[in-house]
């Protein structure tokens, strides 16, 4: 089971919403499918993102994958720890492996995201 207090995208990002602030990362399933993550490219603070727009890149040894913003907002902070320790995305995808914090411009968009049960069903279906 994936964490029940988070919401999810079909692209395997998770988001933890706290008022008008959202923390974003990729799911354990996504991290394990990518394999050993060796590089994460994140936006600078202040960058405005539309819902489902690409905001960065995660690279495993073999592959490059885009990251998509689950919600619209401005980047308040990017996880600087990932520059030196990208493996946190594999080892702690929901904690130390978080990627950006957003100041939301339209919190109602949360309703368009998957809940834990729906995301579980998505990954179970492969």
């Amino acid at each position, binding site marked *: 089971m994936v964490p029940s207090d988070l919401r999810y995208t079909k692209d395997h990002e998770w988001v933890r919403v706290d008022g008008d602030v959202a923390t974003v990362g990729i799911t354990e399933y996504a991290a394990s499918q990518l*394999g*050993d993550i*060796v*590089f994460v*490219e994140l936006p600078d603070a202040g960058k405005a993102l539309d819902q489902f727009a690409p905001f960065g*890149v995660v*690279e*495993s*040894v*073999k592959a*490059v994958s885009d990251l998509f913003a689950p919600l619209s907002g401005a980047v308040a902070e990017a996880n600087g720890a990932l*520059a030196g320790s990208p493996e946190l995305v594999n080892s702690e995808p929901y904690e130390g492996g978080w990627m950006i914090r957003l100041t939301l411009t339209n919190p109602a968009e949360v309703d368009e995201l998957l809940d834990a049960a729906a995301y579980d069903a998505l990954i179970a279906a492969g």
Partner: protein
Amino acid sequence: MTETAAALHHTPLEARHEALGARLIDFAGWLMPVQYAGILDEHRAVRERAGLFDLSHMGELFIEGPEAGAALAFALVTDPPALAEGRAHYSMIVGPDGGIIDDLIVYRLAAERFLVVANASNAHVVSDALAERLARFKAVLDDRSMATALIAIQGPRSVEIVRPLTDVDLDALRYYAIADGSVAGIPGLVARTGYTGEDGFEIFVETSRAAELWDALLAAGAADGLAPIGLGARDTLRLEAGMPLYGNELDRSTNPFEANLGRVVKLAKRGDFVGRAALEKVAASGVTRRLVGLVMRGRGIARHGYPIHAGTRATGVVTSGTQSPSLGEAVALGYVATADAEPGTMVEVEIRGQRVPAEVVALPFYRRER
């Protein structure tokens, strides 16, 4: 039946890979393990201990007959008749225009018997080309690719893992040598070759005995930390060792001199060979681009197909790139204009629209301690 409708080939070790938790992918028409524990762990296992590879997808072509050597000297850029029995060399088969059809290892098994090992993706093309080029010689091609399994054991502990299992004198088996013998009671050919930059062996056996050999090696190596290794780590290992991969660094539009493999081409050998005229011309006139090693000096990983710039000029393209597990830096191979190919030259790799500095370095990136 069309090529795309062809069913996947299955290695005799597929059930072993599944039991070991491997992720299997279609590679060159074969269902092959890309990783088990993870590419980084597997990479380190080979550098620090030893790794076991299923290479059953490779093509094994046996050439036999009184003119086997002469036939190969005509078909390939190297001079196989110059090989001593039991020795091997790196070779290539090129088209009449000098473009590389495949890179190969040629083993001389006996005076009139050779083994040519081709990449899986090219096994059919090489087999067909050799059959055609051998036609006017007293030599017979026996394509045993489907009947032959290849298992490699690579890494510093390989010798001590294999030693108690084999009747081959490993101390006498030098790098790029091959011997007839048995491993774990299974008859085969034991070669001291590989594609990792480490010491190790490649063992050719009948497909029907492959699982038995795999099990025996894994059991014998357990105490030494022998780990199964997928194609993902095979790629990072060969890249660190500066070894080209067909389809990335080598292809039909590339000649050996551009790939820094001019030394492999034996223009001094007697007689004609396919590609000679074209390659003599290249050797005389020089090349306009060269394969180089790159180390990224800014943040980012260069990947296959990324453009390379030198100031305002486009100078070339990346052919392979990854984060080097052994060096902890992003490294790449790529072609650049000859003027930019000297080690120490600074260039820029275009990564998602941004130019990131990279330095041309001498290859290999990684060299084992001896």
